[in-house]
């Protein structure tokens, strides 16, 4: 009995819309989650602290606190994966959420399979990742030890920058990375506004690793926000 409970993930839903909560509860419970609900930010923070959920699904438009404020407060003490689920569509809102520690962002209305996939990705990244030596995704293989990349067994020549970009995206597979974050990680803190670097390098990378450059399957653009490395299993 205890083991069974352990296997189930505990999801905390912080949303003031009763219909959305009901829908999420049905969906999540059907997919092996245990669900607890909070109707506002304060309550949500208390629940998160006392119940220690495996994942938090957070709405940004809460009656008492702003969602981003809740995010910040949570991140002060916890690394629980947080998935933001909101009707806010503007890029600024998404970027603000992601830059303040959200693991992913899904806009309402959402499709159930996509939500579940995003939840899995978020939780995978949160669990202490075992040191991966080789990353495989379809035809692509990245050897982190030797810093070599092969596609269909053939070596792909990458520049240093291209490699660091690919490695960053591959290490965060399935997770959206904002422009700012990528630029800071790859080019350094002075380059955070030079989005054209990204445009050019992503285009070059696609040319080298995607089978059909005009329809990328791995390096996905998140319009106005950043990029996401899509693993084959997710696609």
């Amino acid at each position, binding site marked *: 009995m205890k083991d069974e409970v352990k296997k189930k993930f505990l999801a905390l839903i912080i949303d003031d819309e009763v219909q959305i909560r009901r829908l999420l509860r049905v969906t999540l419970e059907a997919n092996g989650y245990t669900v607890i609900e909070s109707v506002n930010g304060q309550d949500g923070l208390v629940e998160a602290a006392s119940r220690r959920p495996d994942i938090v699904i957070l709405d940004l438009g809460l009656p008492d606190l702003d969602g981003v404020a809740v995010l910040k407060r949570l991140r002060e003490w916890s690394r629980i994966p947080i998935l933001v689920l909101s009707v806010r569509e503007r890029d600024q809102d998404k970027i603000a959420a992601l830059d303040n520690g959200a693991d992913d962002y899904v806009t309402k*209305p959402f499709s159930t399979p996509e939500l579940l996939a995003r939840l899995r990705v978020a939780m995978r990244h949160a669990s202490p990742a075992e040191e991966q030596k080789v990353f495989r995704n379809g035809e692509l293989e990245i050897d982190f030890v030797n810093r070599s990349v092969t596609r269909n067994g053939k070596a792909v020549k990458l520049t240093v920058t291209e490699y660091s970009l690919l490695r960053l995206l591959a290490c965060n597979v399935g997770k959206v990375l904002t422009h700012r974050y990528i630029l800071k990680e790859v080019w350094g803190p002075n380059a955070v506004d030079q989005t054209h670097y990204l445009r050019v390098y992503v285009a070059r990378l696609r040319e080298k690793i995607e089978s059909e450059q005009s329809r990328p399957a791995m390096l996905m653009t998140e319009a106005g926000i950043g990029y996401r490395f899509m693993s084959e299993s997710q696609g």
Partner: protein
Amino acid sequence: MTRIEGPNPDELLAALKKEESQQRRGALKVFLGMCAGAGKTYAMLESAQKAKKAGIDVVIGYVETHGRKETDALKEGIEVVQRRATVYRGVTLTEMDLDALLKRHSQLVLVDELAHTNAPDSRHPKRYQDVLELLDAGIDVFTTLNVQHVESRTDTVREITGAQIQETVPDTVLGEAEIELVDLSPEELLQRLSEGKVYLPEQAATASTNFFREGNLVALREMALRLAAEKAGQNVREYMRSKQISGPWKLGPRLLVAVSASPHSEQMIRWTRRMVDSLGCTWIAAHVETSHVLSEEEQSRLTRHMELARSLGAETRSTADDDVVAGLLRVAREQNVTEIVVGKPTGIWPFGILRSAHFLNRLIRESGNIGLHVMRTEESSNLRAHLSHFLSREAGWRQYLQALLGVSLVTLINMVLDVFVGPRSTGLVYLMTVVLMALFLYRGPVYLTAATSALLWNYFFLPPRMTFHIDNIDDMMMFSMYFIVALAMGHLISRLRAKDRMDRRREERATAMYMLTLELGDASSWEDIVRAAVSNVERTFTAKGALLLPDVSGKLRSDLPEREYGAAVWAFEHMQATGRFSDTLPMADGMYFPLRTTGNALGVLRLQWQQKSPPTIDQRSMLDGFVRHIALVIDRQRLREMKAQTKVLAESERLSQALLNAVSHELRTPIAAIVTATSGLDIGTNPAVHKAMVNEIRQAGERLNRLVANLLDMARLESGHVTPHMDWCDVSDLINAALKRVTTELANRTVSVNIEVATPLVRVDFRLIEQALVDLLLNAAMHTPHGSPVEVSAHVKEHSVVITVGDHGTGLAAEALPRIFDKFYRAPGAVAGGTGLGLSIVKGFVEANGGSIQAANRPSGGAMFSVALPLQEQPIV
């Protein structure tokens, strides 16, 4: 139903109140005396004290007691509004402070010496004009006046006392005034004078001995009494009129005085005014403009006469007709005049007298039921003055010299000819000379030519030669005939030419008016109107022009210096001409004319005259025409803008109606689908049906979501809240992102993507352009048959990157092409569903990014939308 926006009740009320206060004009009470020292100021102060006791708010605007104790004592307790001091040519003058009085706005103001002339920098040249302004502001005024200063009496005063009166008050000012006569017998006055109780300015003191003769005083007293009596009679008549049916009064007398440039006109005008006073009727001063060219002096005299008539309360009319009689009678008939006043004929014998007699005869004959007064005019002009004036008026002395030279030359030629021909032929040569001269010279020189040539002919060529004597009756006849023919010819031809000149002037005027009408007619914007008005004014008058228009708050917009601006505002608010050559603020550089149609002024026309003399009657009437026309055009423009606004309102109403229709339909359909499908889910167990229902629900939801997104986008565009976040974007990235979002909608189609190699980066808002492309792709998916291919391409063209979305549908109808991007426009035959918003949003987004969009039909069939995004210098990587 369109609800017409009415004024709000508060504004309406305020306007009404303002109107009410404007309607209540102040009352004027004049303390009239026969001359200085009659005790007017004393009487006025006495009345003021009474009024004050009755609780009326009285202030002293300007009272001069000249240190007389009794009078000074009466001033006590009455508030004095400080006078305004100005320095003029080193002398400090104090004047009544009009603005302070207007600001103080008491119920009653005391103003001494109504006929006073103000210091040059005052707003009005005359004090009575200040008083009129106080009255306009609804303030009552007590004032004092000597009878000799009343405009219509100045003639008589001069006749009696021999003194020329400079400071006069127009009779119109006294029109509505209550007159209180301050009477004193001449003996008493003389007594007071000898006791030194009458103050006289020093320069007047010497003249006063002549003025204050008992005879004069008796006459002046009679005048004052008569004026007061006439006034009283008038009041009675007015009272009767106001109480009775107006019938008989409509048929009452109405006078017309014929005004010309002749110096006699002034007397006639004054005489008519006195007639009008005793008859208690209305009157008109009319001038008939003929082809006769007026000298500058005459022109200004005429202007003065008309001004005088106006100030004496006449309506003034000016008409153009070469036939003075016809012109006068036309005006008379138009204005229902009962009596015409004309001057007794003057002029040089024989022509002047003959002409005037003819003039009077015709007037008597043709005036029908209109009465005629022929006025005695003072015979001031002697023959010589008249003659020299007449002859030199048009032609300079140079022309006379030319005439004499011509005649001498012809005489020499005739002497040569005389050898071969007889005196008749030489006579004809002379005659020809006269005719030729008439073609080039004015009347005077032509007469001179005629006379000298006749004499020379007689002297040199008619036997007996070298004498003025004529022997036979034949030659006598010939000589006289020659003389008459020459004069007549000369006269006729110069009249013809004068008429010609007149016609030309009229034509010039007509052309100027026509040009103004034409150019203003073409003007469609305010800038155009101002430009056309100013250029036409400057072309027609020797002045610099400017048009001042009010801004939204109704204040005049202008960068003029304060004094000029003050004059302009005055003209605008009081709807009277101000500035130079006018009665209000004549010290200003410019002259200002209010532009009005009905009701309020719409703007002000400023003229900065380059000429030194006031505008002539001709210019004034022309200017009046201009002002009226410009005002009409401004009014028209205002109405046009109001109409355009109404149209915008109607348009937005139409749009919101369309929105409501579209939204209600677009919302209801998916909602209906969801409700129906869920009820189907409840009862059915068939997995296939189940799946279909779920599919329906999902599609309906997506459709609803799209609709809301569209409406939000539209609202953002409309409110101007779309601020693109420009960033470098990869075109293929843009296209891929868009394609990915419409995977489901384009599932069963082949989508070919053709991106030119090495397409440069574009600097746009990724999300907006992506959304635009998504909408274009959805549009293609919606309006083309299932399974037909869709093509997306990108290439560089000139200075932009062009992204095209092409389909293989039926293409766009020709009539739909120009309107395809309009809000709520749906192409004819479009499939059901859709709000007609999509493409207008696409356009809005593309344009917000500095791009452009075009729709076209492809030659191979199907529609094609091209989004052109501006190409910029590529960043360095």
